[in-house]
């Protein structure tokens, strides 16, 4: 007792669990924070709360069945995940799908990116205390999910891609609805800026918060808008164009600040670019089969295959090792969320707990993507 008094008041580092049941971790992610007062000293993510061993399950499934499992990884980008597996299988079989399939895949992938960013925008506002944005984000996303439901048969876990093509042809109303959506959303996207981007409270909480330099982004493997906001040019759509991306014009959004606000702006700008891509393709869907003729039983030749695609969160890699059988010997997903999460500790060190929420929000984590 006496000794304490002599030394005066001493502060001590302590630990606190953020999650697994915490609204701003957007799922079951547990962060072990070590804190000094309100200052974050260290962030240690603990994973595994939603691990379903999808990679292991893939080893027992046929290639056609694997596709639907990827819906359940990054559920906000299910079409793009499906596409990644399908492209990997098609590459291995040396099949090139026709232009119609490529175009439809690209349009839906960009719609998916839009819907994912809309949801992210809504949730981001909510994390920082603005519930209204959540409702506006969902309002616009609803139109896209309706388009998905009409053409693909489901709103979230669409399973619309198959190795060799698509499950159905597009719905007769597809083009009309997509155009109606673009017209609607072009008017609504400026509202997003008006509501949130210019808001002074929002700016105070994001500008200069959670900085990530370009070097760090590269060494942590941070991809997607998170990496591009730090100036790390990593858009797979540009660098290794797949599907119909080599036929369209679009800008790769790059910011150099690397803070929360840059990440926010990068996503907002990406929404404009996505709309731009869809506009170029929607009137020019070529004729053709919606599914190429494929063998009933798909067997990949012995070897290793890798395919990268750009999901709304970054680079998704599918690495298949085949022994020549009906299922892969091993299948590994390089998920963007996992690598992006690894940089969280670096970004959050020295900031306040409230900033940590903003940082997590701008990394746009989807937990099932991290855990798989």
């Amino acid at each position: 007792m006496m000794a304490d008094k002599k030394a005066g008041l001493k502060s001590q580092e302590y630990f606190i669990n953020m999650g697994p049941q915490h609204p701003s971790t957007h799922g079951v992610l547990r962060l072990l924070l070590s804190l000094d007062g309100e200052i974050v000293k260290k962030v240690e993510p603990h994973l595994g709360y939603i691990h379903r061993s999808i990679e292991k399950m893939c080893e027992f499934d046929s290639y056609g069945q694997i596709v639907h499992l990827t819906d359940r990884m990054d559920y906000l980008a299910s079409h793009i995940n499906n596409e990644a597996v399908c492209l990997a299988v098609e590459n291995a079989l040396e099949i090139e799908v026709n232009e119609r399939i490529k175009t439809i895949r690209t349009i839906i992938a960009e719609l998916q990116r839009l819907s994912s960013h809309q949801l992210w925008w809504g949730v981001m506002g909510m994390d920082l205390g603005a519930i209204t944005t959540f409702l506006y984000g969902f309002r616009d996303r609803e139109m896209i999910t309706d388009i998905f439901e009409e053409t693909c048969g489901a709103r979230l876990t669409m399973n619309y891609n198959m190795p060799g093509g698509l499950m159905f042809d597009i719905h007769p109303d597809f083009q009309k609805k997509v155009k109606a959506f673009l017209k609607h959303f072009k008017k609504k996207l400026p509202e997003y800026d008006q509501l949130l981007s210019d808001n002074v409270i929002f700016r105070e909480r994001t500008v200069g918060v959670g900085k990530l330099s370009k070097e760090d982004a590269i060494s942590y493997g941070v991809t997607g808008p998170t990496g591009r906001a730090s100036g790390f040019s990593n858009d797979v759509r540009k660098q290794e164009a797949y599907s119909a991306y080599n036929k369209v014009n679009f800008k790769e959004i790059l910011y150099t600040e690397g803070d929360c606000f840059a990440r926010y702006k990068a996503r907002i700008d990406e929404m404009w670019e996505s709309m731009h891509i869809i506009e170029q393709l929607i009137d020019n869907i070529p004729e053709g089969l919606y599914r190429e003729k494929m063998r009933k039983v798909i067997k990949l030749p012995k070897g290793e295959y890798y395919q990268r695609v750009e999901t709304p969160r970054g680079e998704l890699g599918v690495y298949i090792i085949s022994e020549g059988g009906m299922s892969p010997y091993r299948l590994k997903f390089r998920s963007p969320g996992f690598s992006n999460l690894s940089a969280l500790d670096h970004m959050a060190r020295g900031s306040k707990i409230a900033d940590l929420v903003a940082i997590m929000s701008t990394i746009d984590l989807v937990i099932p993507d991290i855990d798989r």
Partner: protein
Amino acid sequence: MKAIIHYFKTIFAALKTLVKGMAITGHYFIHPKEIITQQYPENRDTLKMFERFRGEVVLLHNENNEHRCTGCSACEIACPNGTIEIITKRVETPEGRKVKQIDRFVYHLSMCTMCNLCILACPTDAIVMSNDFEHAVFDRSQLTKILNKPGSKLMEGVRH
């Protein structure tokens, strides 16, 4: 002095942006037509799902209680998660031939991921996805369904 001016400037800027945001809220307040919320379940009678919406697997029966399932098990093999179990039996036809027929088409709704692979696999188009999405029940066992109706039989002329 400068600091004080800056302080007040920030406050005014803040108020301005807040008003800007509130303008949108106000706009929707006086334009209720632009609101798209659906009143579920009040609108149950008028609610129409999209034709392709995948709600659950059903085995189609016609008015004579006949279905098209030959018991070939293609759907069972196609299913990624063991949702479907086809249990067949051997029956004797009037001509004295022994043929395979389905005894029970067991469907575990609780395991189904609505992936549509079974529907694509079926050679005789016996099963389809229905639009019904209200699956809530009080007991888990109710989710295991026998899809072939009692007394139903194979439609004339359907072969593998």
